[in-house]
């Protein structure tokens, strides 16, 4: 009977191996999909017990922290609430909902439990996450909110040499201590800075000028006829007030924002070159920010007949109008700040980032975000020529409202007409950097709606206030 017993034992071994295979399947092979199963409350419950790390401003001001809740759990509070709701976001572990940095920096804030630390984890009490230091400037953020004075709109400021986001504020904001239900009618967690769709208007002429000069087709002193109206893509295009400027240099066309000249320039530079430069600035791609992917939009021209974006370089694009920020082009404020940043940093576009460093509970920095180059958009010589053109805008053109006295500012206004024909509703915008000779801040201000206001009169003063605070900080 021994042979039968040996075979029987073989069967038992196979059965036990089957148990081990299935245990392996659940613990290792299918683990991540099981952990993300919507029925699985375990991940959420585990999160309730984790003391998430804090989120702090650059100066150490606490923007988010955990406070004890019943049943050995933790809940989040946001001391500055609405002021930083958009960059910080919120986290409600019990509902499994999160937004902003709370979501994108979640693994840092929870503290990553590696295999080994989970073995020894039993010796320590409940896990504690790491602190996330952001690049945000509290004083400038406050100033942005104050300067917007309740108007719907966005302010975003970057350090051109690093890509650090200094200011990210948009109206309307929301109370992240008590966020609205996701998808509800009152959902205002929408972040205009990264998700808004603004008509850039003339601020886009910075991109057109860059493509024109860097491609070698134009110089700042090239002369183009600024007559009005002209025909672009078969449709008449007029200057502001239908003013015919006659032959003017590219610099003058920038200073006074002459539409017909820039439309001709864009058409002459051509669709492939324009598309190439737009891509280098980051258009046609999702914003490269350390922020939740579903809260980042793409800046690109849209086809009004299909309601869809044009494929890059599509022959259906009206490249002449795109060259003056029209033609269905819709942008995020952060994208326009990146445009200013690239010109400011000698043509080099740094990847924007909100996270500066991650520090554990022992005060040891476990991760530092190093500045990375997104793309070399243009030659340094082009950058300095475009800078000089943008300086003229502020010195004697449409952007004089932003003059800082002693500090030179390079900027470009934009005033897109919105609403039905005949209405005087506008979307004022201002994109700038300062000091022009040694830039420390690049900024984009976009106001949702104004009753006949211009970029120079509505958006530029807001930019001026925020620039003053940021430049004073830097000294």
């Amino acid at each position, binding site marked *: *009977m*021994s*042979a*039968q*017993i*040996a075979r*029987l*034992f073989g069967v*038992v*071994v196979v*059965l*036990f191996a*089957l*148990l*081990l295979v*299935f*245990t*392996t*399947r*659940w*613990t*290792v092979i*299918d*683990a991540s999909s*099981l*952990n993300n*199963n919507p*029925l*699985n*409350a*375990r*991940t959420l*419950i*585990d999160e*309730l*017990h984790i003391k998430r790390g804090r989120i702090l401003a650059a100066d150490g001001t606490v923007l988010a922290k955990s406070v004890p809740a*019943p*049943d*050995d*759990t933790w809940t989040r509070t946001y001391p500055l609430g609405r002021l930083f709701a958009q960059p910080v976001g919120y986290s409600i572990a019990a509902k499994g909902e999160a937004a902003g940095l709370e979501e994108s920096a979640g693994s840092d804030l929870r503290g990553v439990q590696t*295999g*080994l630390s*989970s*073995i*020894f*984890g*039993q*010796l320590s009490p409940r896990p504690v996450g790491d602190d996330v230091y952001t690049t945000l400037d509290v004083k400038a953020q406050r100033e942005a909110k104050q300067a917007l004075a309740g108007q719907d709109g966005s302010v975003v400021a970057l350090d051109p040499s690093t890509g650090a986001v200094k200011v990210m504020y948009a109206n309307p904001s929301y109370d992240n201590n008590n966020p609205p239900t996701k998808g509800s009618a009152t959902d205002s967690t929408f972040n205009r800075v990264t998700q808004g769709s603004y008509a850039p208007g003339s601020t886009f002429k910075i991109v057109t000028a860059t493509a024109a000069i860097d491609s070698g087709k134009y110089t700042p002193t090239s002369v183009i006829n600024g007559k009005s109206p002209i025909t672009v893509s078969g449709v008449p295009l007029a200057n502001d007030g239908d003013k015919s400027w006659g032959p003017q240099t590219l610099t003058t066309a920038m200073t006074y924002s002459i539409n017909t000249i820039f439309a001709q320039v864009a058409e002459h530079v051509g669709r492939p070159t324009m598309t190439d430069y737009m891509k280098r600035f980051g258009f046609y791609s999702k914003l490269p920010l350390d922020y939740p992917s579903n809260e980042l939009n793409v800046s690109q021209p849209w086809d009004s007949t299909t309601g869809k974006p044009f494929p890059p370089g599509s022959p259906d694009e009206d490249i002449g109008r795109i060259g003056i920020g029209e033609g269905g082009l819709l942008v995020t404020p952060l994208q326009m700040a990146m445009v200013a940043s690239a010109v400011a940093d000698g043509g080099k576009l740094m990847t924007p980032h909100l996270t500066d460093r991650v520090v554990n509970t022992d005060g040891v920095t476990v991760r530092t975000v190093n500045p990375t180059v997104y793309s070399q958009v243009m030659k340094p010589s082009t950058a300095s020529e475009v800078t000089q053109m943008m300086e003229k805008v502020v010195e004697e053109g449409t952007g004089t409202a932003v003059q800082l006295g002693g500090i030179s500012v390079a900027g470009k206004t934009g005033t897109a007409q919105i609403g039905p024909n005949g209405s005087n509703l506008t979307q004022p915008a201002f994109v700038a950097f300062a000091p022009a000779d040694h830039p420390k801040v690049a900024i984009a201000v976009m106001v949702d709606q104004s009753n006949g206001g211009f970029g120079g009169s509505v958006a530029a003063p807001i930019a001026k206030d925020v620039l003053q605070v940021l430049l004073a900080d830097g000294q």
Partner: protein
Amino acid sequence: MRARNRELMGLIPASLLVTAGFAGVFIQRSNALSNVSLTYGAIFLGLCVGAHIFIRITLPHADPYMFPLVAVLASFGLVMIYRIDSTQARDQAQWFVIGLILFVATIVVFRDYRKLERYRYTIVFLSLGLLILPRIPHIGEQANGAYLAIHVPGLGAFQPAEFAKIGLVIFLASYLRDTRQILVTGTRRFLGITIPPIKHFGPMLVIWGIAMLIMIVLRDIGSSLMFYGGLLAVLYVATGRISFVVIGLFAFALGAWYLGTHISHVHARVEDWLHPFDPRLYHAPLGSYQSANAIFAQSAGGLFGQGFGQAALTIPGGGPLLPAPQTDMIYAVITAELGLFGSAALLLTYLLFVARGFKAAVLARDSFSTLLAVGLSAMFALQVFVIVGGVTRVIPLTGVTLPFVSYGGSSVVANLVLVALLLLVSDRARRPA
């Protein structure tokens, strides 16, 4: 080293495990516990050493590894239950004491266990009676639709099937000792397969009937599979006929399929098994919530586990996240906290015990002893397979215990009697002639 000294050495891992485990829980909740808890460990070890001395005197030749393996399993179980519910750990420790008393009694009374053969018909009817007890009104208890326990006033729930499995093995081993020769003779060959005469299918029909009875009466696929598999193993070893196994498994599958589609509770269990993550079943009363959360608990464990005492078992401010963590679901808790490596170690311990049981069967000098040891070991192995297989979704989830590890008095007591019988067989087999 002499056998009994090896056994004593084997208790060292058990003692380390129980000390480390209780110390771990103690450190974790030092604010909530007094150091009385640590004395549990000491008492447990004292009991094991006492049992060892008893074996040393009465069964000097018995397998030296069996009892230490049981001690490891029991101490592991005690620590796990303690971590889940400290009052239940005290109950479990008391049941372990009662179990050891029965363990000693079994060895003293059935020193010559072969006299069990004389009572085989009494034993089989008692066992079958025990099996249907849970269906008798007023004393039977239903849990999750299955009838696996009766209520004993003053003692709580009692699972008669735990004892019935031993009785049925004793009966079949004794019956086949007499008839196995007849069963293998007079065979014909048909299409290259050896077919025994129809009348020799009698014993097989009987065990098939028992299995189907369990499924109908207890409404539990797992218990049915355990009994059927255990008894079929004895039949196979006795006759050496693969055809019995093939036909037997086919007949079982047929019966299980028929009953699975016609008994609503059994059918529901099968549906839960096939579609545990179907939201409709997940949210249904007695639906797949438990099965699905057993899987989620394992996935939370990963390779190394979340750490002892770290896995969530309840929803904060709500109900249970993992129902029945100390009984049906203890394997899921172990995997969640100690990971794949912890579970693999546990399964290996069970496998080693089963291997020692089969070793005793091989060494035994008479066929009753061999068949008894085979049956008891196979039944034990299948019990582990049925409950762990249920938790890991190899088979539908059922309500049998994980021997020595999960909470339950009848299980600990019955399995200690099972170990006593295996030690008796082993001692006789290894005794120098």
